[in-house]
């Protein structure tokens, strides 16, 4: 009995010691893993830059590449939080991040007009594409994007076999583009499209997830070219409509206004935007994916092309630091 109690006590002491050790490692673990220690990081994080960004950029792997190069060059810790454009801009409004990297011109303009976003710079573009099953049950091949949306809508509401459309449904940049296309096709998004029937599926997820869902259901979906290409080897879906000015997809970086949120790392954000718009970085973006996918995923924007329609943005002037 006595030895038993001693054993039990020893057991408890051992468990407590483990717990104590774990408490001890709260101080040491972050350094060992290059994890910033939350409690000791200076407010605003002098050498940490937080970037809210879109799932389409994260899913292509471009961000990981940019992060690796920039961190090697400068020692700055870039932290990407991928959320979809709507939520990213909201993170910027709240001052939870230092800059946003997004692709929805209307939302971007509002963010700037409201005084929360400053120094917008467009970085690169590619195109949205309508992807779908090879059999093309709605018969939209060779149509313009707007005609294609009309054909999908008609086929869907007539319950044509095999016609379905998967929407991101998450207020992301791609979702916004989809809404614009429905409006241009003559439908009211809220009234006509949202409850149009079982053929219209809202995924509520990132671009990669949505492509996988569309693939499982052999449905049409709107994707950015970059994410589609980086997922193409795992998908049976093919690009059905890939031409049309309405499908332009422009990515921009916008810093959060330090006059609204004094805590943001404005200097770090400006430095990163200037690095993004430098010629070397653009060259790197323009080559990204060539090796793996046979063609680049993004086309960098240069002046004066970027200041002209359809881009109408600033891409070359450095941001004041």
């Amino acid at each position, binding site marked *: 009995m006595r030895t038993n109690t001693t054993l039990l006590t020893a057991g408890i002491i051992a468990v407590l010691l483990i717990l104590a050790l*774990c408490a001890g490692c709260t101080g040491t673990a972050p350094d060992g893993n290059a994890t910033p220690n939350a409690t000791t990081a200076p407010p605003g994080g002098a050498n940490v830059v937080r970037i809210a960004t879109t799932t389409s950029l994260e899913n292509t792997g471009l961000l990981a590449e940019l992060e690796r190069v920039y961190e090697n060059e400068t020692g700055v810790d870039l932290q990407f939080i991928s*959320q979809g454009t709507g939520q990213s801009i909201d993170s910027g409004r709240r001052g*939870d991040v230092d800059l946003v990297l997004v692709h929805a011109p209307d939302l971007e303009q509002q963010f700037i007009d409201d005084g929360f976003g400053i120094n917008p710079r467009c970085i690169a573009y590619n195109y949205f594409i309508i992807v779908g099953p090879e059999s093309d049950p709605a018969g939209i091949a060779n149509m313009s994007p707007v005609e294609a949306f009309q054909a999908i809508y008609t086929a869907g509401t007539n319950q044509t076999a095999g016609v379905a459309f998967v929407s991101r449904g998450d207020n992301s940049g791609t979702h916004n583009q989809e809404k614009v296309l429905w409006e241009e096709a003559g439908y009211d998004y809220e009234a006509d499209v949202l409850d149009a029937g079982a053929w219209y599926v809202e995924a509520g997820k990132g671009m990669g997830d949505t492509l996988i869902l569309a693939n499982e259901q052999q449905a049409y979906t709107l994707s950015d070219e970059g994410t589609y290409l980086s997922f193409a080897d*795992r998908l049976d879906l093919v690009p059905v409509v890939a031409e049309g000015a309405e499908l332009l997809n422009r990515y921009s970086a916008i810093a959060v206004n330090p006059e609204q949120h004094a805590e943001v790392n404005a200097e770090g954000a400006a430095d990163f935007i200037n690095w993004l718009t430098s010629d070397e970085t653009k060259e790197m973006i323009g080559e990204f994916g060539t090796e793996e996918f046979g063609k680049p995923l993004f086309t960098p924007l240069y002046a004066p092309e970027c200041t002209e329609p359809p881009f109408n943005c600033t891409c070359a002037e450095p941001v004041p630091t």
Partner: protein
Amino acid sequence: MVNGNPIVEGFIEAIELIIALDPQVVEITIRSLYVSLTATFFAALIALPLGALIYFYEFRGKHAVVSTLQTLYALPTVIVGLVMFLFLSNIGPFGFLRLLYTPGGMIVTQTVLIIPLLMGLTVSALSGIDRDKRYTITALGASRLQTVMTIISEARFAVMAGVLLGFGRAIAEVGSVMIVGGNIRGATRVLTTAITLNTSMANYSLSIALGIILLSVALGVNLALSLVQRR
């Protein structure tokens, strides 16, 4: 899927990743353990004394408190995530702490998540000690403090089991760490959020590898639990 059998291939690749101690896998695993162990430690520090207080002191509404705690066992992680996000966001009441999207914020959130569980289980653990034993202890002439200490030491294994359960809940949850941590690579990415992300990027092998590790941790907790309970 196009490329052969993704489950078999993914599984083989996953085993390779684990055997080769892939730095990404190791880093995410260490961070996951660090966040959840720290959260469990702080939660235990707060919840065990509070649970003991609730058990030993008679007060009005004690039943209601215990029922509330038991209801909160099932506290949905996303709701804790949402509330903590609003509190910790830059414009929220605790925004000045700058804890959003940091491991510190995740620790605070998981601590909040499992405190009710640990408190409730402490109360049940102490209640599990035979009432007769309590009277015997008092009858043997123990002072109040001695009685309390004896009952606590009698219940220690049941309390330990509660702590392990709390740790299991913390390390397995994805909802709140995703919202509060933001799943930042190299900063706040833990096992569960990494599995979510890599599945959405169709990197199934990495997801499976992380899943195997998460399951092993859960298995380890269970083994420890049954060891403790066997005593």
